[in-house]
Structures are given as C-alpha cells and as structure tokens.
C-alpha cells in the first residue's frame, strides 16, 4: 500500500507553502477585494516563473512536466493562501482541455504561453443558473464561428482565451477555443460572491473559434469537468485547512469567562468536526489524485466523491471559522470572510453538490452487488 504523494512532490508542496507564506498573506487577496484589479499580476508572474502554472504541461510544450499530482499538491497550497490568481481557470480547465483534446499544433501554439503564465485561459460553460446539462446549451458552433452568451465565466474579464462549450449541429457538444481579444467577443465583468476571483459574462457573436478536435461530445466534456473537479478539490481542502488553522489559533488566544474559548467543549467539538470533515475530504481527494494520475476507469466516481467531500469540508470549515471568531468574524477587517467567500465560490464553480450527488448515484446504480463490494 502506497497511498501517498511521492517525496519529491511533498517537498515541492513544502516549498510552495513557504513561498506563499512569504508572498501571499491574506492581505494580497484583500487588496483585490478593496481595490479591484481582477487578480494579482505580480504573484501570477512569479508562480508562472516557478513552473507552477505549467506543472501538468510536458516540457516539449514549455511546461515543467511534473504531472497532475504536482498540480494537486500546488492547488492545496494555493487554496490555503486564498491566492487571487487565475490558477484554477488556466490550469484545471484551459490547459487541461488542451492537453486532453488539443491537436499537436494547438498544443504547440497555446500551451507555452499558458504554462509560462503570459496568457490566461478559462472555460466558458454555464448559460443559465441551474445544473450543468451539456446537451441543453444554446451556444452554437458552426464553420469556425461561435455565437452565444456565457454567464459568470471565471476570470472571463482577464482571460486571453476561452474554451467554449457549445453545440454543433453535426457533432453535438464541442469544445471550441476562442481568442477573447478578437472581434465578435463582448465581455462584461460581473460582481461575484468572492470579488477576489473575478468573473465576466461573455457574449460571442460569430467570434472566430477553433475546435479542440479530440473532444467527441458531452461525455468528453464531462470528463474534463471531472478532472478539473479533482484538482479543485485539493484547492478546497487547502482553504478548509487554513480556516481550521485560523479558528484553532484564535480559540487558543481568545479568552472569555476567564479562560481560552478553546477550552470550552462547544468550541472543541465544533473544531473537531471541522477536522473530521477535512480529513475525509483530503482522503477522498487523494483517491481522485490517484485516478487522475492513472486514468483509472473509476475517475467519474472518484471525482464526484472528491468534489462532494471537498464542498462539505470547505463550507463547514469556513462558516464555522467565522462563527468561532464571533463578531470579529463578521467584520470587513477580519479575514474570516475571505475564506468563506472563496469556499462557496469554489463550491459552486464546477457545479454544486446537489448535481454531483445525482451524478455519483448515476454511476453507482449501474453496478451490481459484487462490483460494489469489490470497490470496498
């Protein structure tokens, strides 16, 4: 049994932790919150130079060639630091879509720019509130042109390119790469529940688009979302852990009734429950990482399980961190709300728990008793 990250990746994670402790205290996210600016360009450039953005990109395309386990480890630290950078959009979605479905030429052109953080990519999918149903999307692709409106595209206001999920009359669901600075693209930044991660509504009106030809329909789009959800689960676990760490240290320092509030069982049990939720989520994320690395057939189940547990842990830990801080937890000056905002944003950005649970059961119900037992 070797259910753990390799030592070199663990070392990399420690380095990332140290780097972010020095460069990305919550004040960095707060700067975006207070003054706008969409994301921290200096930090983004630095983590690009460190090879983080290109961690999953092979060296031949200008990446660091470290693989997906490295992305998972980095994501955890980025989540803990609530870093205001377009890492998720670019790495889990944009780069991943190109790696999975891009042609050799597309990879050669686009991946080096993304891996070096000189360009930002995103995925434009949702068109209305509600569960993601790929086959009901209204955006149309036809003959190298795309039209339609995408709602709340993460980093959509600053992204250089978007992978757009659309329908093609002949092929069904397609992924089309669009240069967002070109004609026929109108974008409008929209306020979000976490302003440290900017979003935009994008309208495509016959914008030039190139197909990612490897994508063969809705199932492939789902596969992309599944893989992204696993990487994001690590970011969520990182954020949840940071919230627990902050609640714990506050509970040790803050005195009430002549004693640290952490000596009261009401607080202890709350923090213990946060710990339990985070460890369950971490373990499930590990399983996702294993599926991601090996391309196991289990991946859809692993992704759903990782996603649901990460949503639970992120929500519980960040809301109870606010609660543990009392009135201070609800001030603008206190940092608790930064974690709370981020957790919920990440928790809905690839679809909420409700749709993932139904999807998980869709996978499980087709298994027979022996298959279910064998998975234990």
């Amino acid at each position, binding site marked *: *049994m*070797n*259910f*753990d*990250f390799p030592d070199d990746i663990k070392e990399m994670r420690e380095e990332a932790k140290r780097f972010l402790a020095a460069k990305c205290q919550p004040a960095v996210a707060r700067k975006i919150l207070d003054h706008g600016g969409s994301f921290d360009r200096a930090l983004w450039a630095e983590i690009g130079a460190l090879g983080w953005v290109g961690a999953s990109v092979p060296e031949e395309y200008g990446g660091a060639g470290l693989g997906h*386990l490295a992305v998972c480890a980095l994501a955890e630290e980025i989540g803990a630091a609530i870093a205001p950078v377009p890492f998720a959009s670019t790495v889990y979605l944009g780069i991943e879509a190109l790696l999975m479905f891009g042609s050799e030429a597309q990879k050669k052109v686009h991946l080096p720019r993304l891996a070096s953080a000189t360009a930002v990519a995103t995925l434009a999918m949702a068109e209305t509130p509600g569960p993601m149903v790929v086959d009901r999307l209204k955006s149309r692709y036809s003959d190298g042109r795309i039209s339609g409106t995408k709602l709340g595209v993460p980093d959509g206001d600053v992204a250089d390119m978007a992978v757009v999920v659309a329908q093609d009359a002949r092929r069904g669901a397609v992924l089309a790469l669009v240069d967002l600075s070109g004609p026929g693209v109108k974008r409008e930044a929209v306020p979000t529940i976490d302003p440290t991660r900017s979003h935009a509504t994008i309208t495509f009106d016959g914008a030039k688009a190139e197909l990612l030809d490897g994508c063969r329909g809705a199932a492939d789009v789902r596969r992309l979302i599944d893989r992204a959800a696993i990487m994001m689960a690590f970011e969520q676990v990182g954020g949840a852990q940071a919230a*627990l760490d902050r609640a*714990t240290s506050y*509970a*040790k320092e803050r005195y009430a009734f002549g*004693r*640290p509030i*952490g*000596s*009261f*069982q009401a*607080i*202890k*049990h709350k*923090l*213990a*429950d946060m*710990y*339990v939720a985070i*460890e*369950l*989520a*971490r*373990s*499930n994320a*590990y*399983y996702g*990482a*294993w599926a991601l*690395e*090996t391309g196991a057939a289990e991946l859809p189940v692993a992704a*759903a*399980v990782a996603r*649901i*547990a990460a949503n*639970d842990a992120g929500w519980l830990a960040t809301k109870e961190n606010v609660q543990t801080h009392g009135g201070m937890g609800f001030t603008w000056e206190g940092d608790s709300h930064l974690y709370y905002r981020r957790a919920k944003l990440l928790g809905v950005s690839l679809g909420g728990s*409700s749709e*993932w*649970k*139904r999807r*998980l*059961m*869709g996978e*499980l*119900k087709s*298994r027979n*008793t*022996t298959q*279910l*037992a064998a998975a*234990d």
Partner: protein
Amino acid sequence: MDFSDTTEEATYRAKVRAFLDANAERRKPGEVAGYRRGQDKPGAIDAAKAFQRKKYEAGFAGITWPKEWGGQGGTPIQQVIYNQEEANYKTLSQVFTIGLGMLMPTICTWGTEEQKDRFVQSALRGEEIWCQLFSEPAGGSDLAALRTRAERDGDQWVVNGSKIWTSGAHYSRYGCLVARSDSSAPKHKGLTYFWIDMKAPGVDIQPIRQASGSKHFNQVFFNDLRLDDSQRIGAVGDGWKVAITTLMNERYVAGETPGPDANELIELARVLQNENGPLIDDPGVQEKIAEFYVRTQGLRFTKFRTMTRLSRGGTPGPEASIGKLVTASKLQEITSYGLDLMGQAAGVATPDMPLAGIFEEALMYSPALRIAGGTDEVLRNIIAERVLGLPGDVRVDKDVPFTEVPTGPKRG
C-alpha cells in the same frame, strides 16, 4: 500512488486467506456481518477458543507482538491485512479482543515475570478469555472517578464495590481490575491495578440486558473479594498509569465495524419502489445515499493513508483518530435511513426483510458503538486536545483528595 500490496504483503495475504479458507466459513458476497452475532449460541465460545488455538498454531496470533512475548514479531501492516481478511469470514475473534489487544500488552509492560509466564501464552492460545473491569456506575468517561475499594490486609487486599459494562465477564476466566487503594489521595493517584480470578468467591456476575435485548455485558459485584498482593500489576498507587497502557492499546484493536453501509442502501433502494419506479432513481434518495457513500469512501481512504504509514514502518497518524467517531454515527444514521426507505413495513424485524433484516438489527446495536470504547464526546475532546492542541477543560477534581471531589446526589 499505488493501492496494491507490496510483494511481501501479497504473499502474506495469500497465506492468511489459505489459513482462513481451511479453518473458517467465508461470508457470502453481500452478506453483512451483525454485531457479535452468534456469540450466545451454545458452543460458540468453545468454537472461538478452538479457532484461536488454530490461529496460534498457524502463526496468526499476536502478529505484532515481540517474540519475547510469544508473538510473531510481525508488522502492523500484517495485522491490518489479517484483520481485513478475517472480516470476510464468520468468526468470533472479538471475544479475545480485550484480552489480547489490551490486557496482555499491559501485563507484558507492567507485570512481573511470573505473571507474564502464567498468563500471556495461555491467552494467546485461546485457553483463557479475559475481561476488563474498569467502568463503574460512578465512573464511565471519567474513569478515574471509580469508587471500588481495595483495602490492604497484610499480604492481601480486600475488594468491595462494583464494575459495569463488563463485556464477556460471564465467559471470562480472568479480568483486570482498577480499584481505589487510597481515597485521601487525589483521584488519579489513589488507584491500583490487579488481575482477578472471575470464579473466586466474592465475585458476583449479573448480566445486563442491553437495549438491543442481547446480554453481552454485565455488572460485576465484589463482596470482600480477597486478592493476594502478587495479583497486583504495577506499584501501589500507579493504577492510573497502568490503566492508561490498557487504554492506549484500545485504539489498535478497533476492528471492522459490522452492519449496513452505503452499498447496502444502494441495494435496498434498487429493490424498493415508489410510484415512479425504483427508489434509486428518486433524486432525494440519490442525494442522501450519495452523502453516506462519500463518508464511507472518505473513511476507507483515510484507512489507506494510515496503512501507508504502517506499511513504511511508521505509527498511525492523527488522521486515524477519526475512524470510530465517523463510523459509529454513520452506521446509526444509515440504519435509520434504511428503515425510513422501507416505510410502513420497516417495523417488522424478521430475517426475511430486505438484506436479511440487517437494518432492523443494527438499529438497536448501533447506539452502543457511539458509547463503547470512548463516547463521541470524549473522542471529539481527544481530537481537539491531542490533534489540534486546544487547552484542557477547567478541572475542579485535580489536586484535591478524592473524598473532597464534588459528586451528584447518588453515590455508586
């Protein structure tokens, strides 16, 4: 990352399977284990003893114990593999869990050479079953509040009082007892640890009928039970330290928890129908079962993380502390939900109910698992204090003589 056994682990697992196939009955696929099911049947204890003897002879008893204790000098991962495999068979090894998992390690750590020679091997061979006489009517989670007195009388001790929740006292040959030898000392300092003969005069065992109706545990009364001083384990007044050794071993013995899990809910929801078809297609049911499945998988992979540490020769990490806390409450909730799904007929508790009535059975034993071996509340305190490093609660019972510790109106 790799889930598979190493070559040595796979070899060991194959040996274990071969032994179990030859000596025990394998459970059918999908057949769920109940809690201590079958233990009350005539001849069950003798059969358990005979099986333990075979385990001993095949080298699967005391797997992790050092050779000088008569163990195999094996690794924790071997023990985990053995436990995983045995969980697929109908055995009653749990009757030895307390003795072999907790009490013999205590005797090996604190006992005299004579005590070790006399008891350890015979326990390992399954000849003598042991029970643990710790909890009392006045001391459960607060074990050190115990009141059973051991009074010195020359070379002997005279014990009076009673112990409660003693699993297996009725079929145990011996037991380990913590008693108060000095009421004027602070509560943790006036305790002494002994072994006792469960058949000695002055020991009266009364079964306690559990809420589930079965009688696995007992209240044990001591009326002038006389102990020789040679039955003392550890120094006079060191009983708390010795008891801690017993309790520290408890976390290593927690095995697989029997009962229905998320997979059984899936099976159930496939069989049961509402007006639209199988419940498995109902969105509300799907969401609920998915939640249980995610928790089950989280626990499973948390165990894998612990196994990985063990596999590398390490000790369980802090993540191992969540196992019983999550398992016990999940079992109770799954049980309740399974019964909800069965609706009006769920009150029927017969084996011809779906999944052989395991939901009906687990309803009544699952509450015990949230209490035995550390309550949910105690486990949360342990996580908060030992893992998260939160300060201990304010104590009014430390550093004062035991006789001055406040108590409720009833004194045990």
